[in-house]
């Protein structure tokens, strides 16, 4: 893909440590407008931490994250929330919210303190619900929604935030295969830049670019076919794997063998 000159989001030498352990180590990364960037790596590789650093929710110990060349440390939370939305893993609530209530939270950074709600806010919420095909279920209480529906509502909430960049932390976790594919297709279809932490490598194949993390360091960054090589998958996950062409489709398949 042809990359525009100026990145939307850039991380320079970003590192983060907690309780003496380095979780993210010297990450350099440019995210360009319009792309879907997958982040892969084994459990504990620092995927979630990296997303939080990019979202400005954690301050990097070293290094700097910039959004459209403005350092996040100089932006207010509200300004950041207008640029970037995070869909975290397993965000749950006991409140008796409806799906629409949850999506309306996405308007928070755009409302005044006393929060006068405008027609454009309703419109943004309606668009977001429609984008994730939850319009018909908008008035359903949260507790009655399935895992896939909740995840779609979270994505709709992020959509209603009207961000330029959406960060998603393993959005397909705990979903059945049907909903996994639906969520990945949805993220790809949204006209938005996305950074997605992914567990499932076959989903990574559908991204524009893939970032491979190991012990907090970037070990590869490029197109899925450049990154998902047998050598890299061996390094990352300790498995033997290779890409094989799908006789009936465009996206290759990954065949695994546990290293024995």
């Amino acid at each position, binding site marked *: 893909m042809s990359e525009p000159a100026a990145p939307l989001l850039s991380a320079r030498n970003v590192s983060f440590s907690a309780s003496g352990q380095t979780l993210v180590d010297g990450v350099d990364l440019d995210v360009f407008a319009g792309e879907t960037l997958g982040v892969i790596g084994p459990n504990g590789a620092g995927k979630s931490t990296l997303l939080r650093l990019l979202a400005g929710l954690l301050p990097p110990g070293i290094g700097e994250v910039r959004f459209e060349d403005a350092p996040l440390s100089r932006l207010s939370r509200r300004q950041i*929330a207008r640029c970037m939305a995070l869909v975290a893993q397993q*965000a749950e609530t006991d409140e008796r919210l409806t799906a629409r209530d949850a999506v309306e*939270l996405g308007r928070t*950074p755009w409302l005044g303190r006393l*929060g006068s*709600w405008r027609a454009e806010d*309703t419109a943004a919420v309606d668009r977001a619900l429609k984008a994730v095909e939850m319009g018909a279920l908008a008035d359903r209480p949260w507790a009655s929604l399935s895992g896939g529906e909740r995840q779609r509502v979270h994505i709709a909430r992020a959509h209603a935030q009207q961000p330029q960049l959406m960060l998603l932390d393993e959005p397909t976790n705990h979903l059945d295969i049907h909903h996994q594919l639906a969520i990945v297709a949805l993220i790809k279809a949204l006209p938005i830049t996305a950074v997605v932490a992914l567990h499932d490598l076959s989903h990574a194949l559908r991204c524009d670019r893939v970032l491979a993390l190991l012990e907090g360091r970037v070990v590869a960054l490029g197109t899925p076919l450049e990154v998902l090589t047998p050598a890299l998958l061996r390094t990352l996950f300790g498995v033997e794997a290779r890409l094989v062409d799908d006789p009936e489709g465009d996206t290759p398949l990954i065949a695994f063998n546990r290293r024995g």
Partner: protein
Amino acid sequence: MRATHLGAGSARWVWLMPLCLIAALLIGASVGETRIPLATVLEVLASKLGVIDHPLSTLDEAIVWHYRLARAVVAACCGAGLAVSGVILQALLRNSLADPYLLGISAGASTGAVTVTVAGLGAGMISMSMGAFAGALAAFSFVALLAHLAGGGQGVRGAGILILAGIAGAQLFNALTAFIIAHSANAEQARGIMFWLLGNLSAVRWPDAWLAMPVAGASLAVALSQVRSLDAFAFGAESAASLGVNLRATKGLLIGTAALATAVMVAITGAIGFVGLVVPHACRLLVGVRHRRLVPATTLCGAVFMVLCDVVSRVVIPGQVLPIGVITALVGAPAFAYLMVRGRR
């Protein structure tokens, strides 16, 4: 079409609730050991407000104005302040059982107020309130730290740990209060303090109301200014931050407000339990969970609830005034049990 969006549908209770509060205040002024007809209450009010100008029985006037109405107004402020504190704590801590009393904040406020009194720093309402505020913040910090160290997070287990930490905090601060009284208070002070600790409105007069009203009003104003942030905590603090809420500033402001409201109300009336728990939950059933409606509804319901509890405490046993905390606990403890059972799902 959803007509109820944060405005249109709420019009009904918006007008109903203040009327309920006025009615409750009038009942509070009328009902008691000697029953005073509502007409007399209204006459006293009219004369005090300078509307009418003919002589009244000084006894009626004293009872209605100096005793009962002051008491009802303080009860209303106290109920409003404690209920708002409950809403704030429940939203920020994402714990449906959070309440200033159950989290030990009231106990800390009592310790602070007693310390100031006994240390002779002044038994005035302002200095007691300041002591209570310091005690409330200390208790909250203790409970929050303990819950954090015990690994309390979200979910049912985290909720349980927070309440356990609250019990530990309440016990500790109550023990400190008892120790300070035993160690430093003279017999007369001790008697007065013990009476006040139970939660009592008997000694309340207008000067107390002049303190309670601005504090209740200010807590309501702060909570109203933060309704969007309170909503944003529905999916947790991180989610609130990613929605643009400045966590440190918002939590500091809101917890400070809850602690101040609790502290001042405790300084005036002693620790009264369960108001911050029962009222917000009842209001959620009435107006839903969005804070734009929940905060004003809770404030008004809290005020009405407390005034009515005070009336009940004065008439339920003829010739005897029960501490109001007994009535609120008789209503609140079953509500607490219900919430616990429901939270199991």
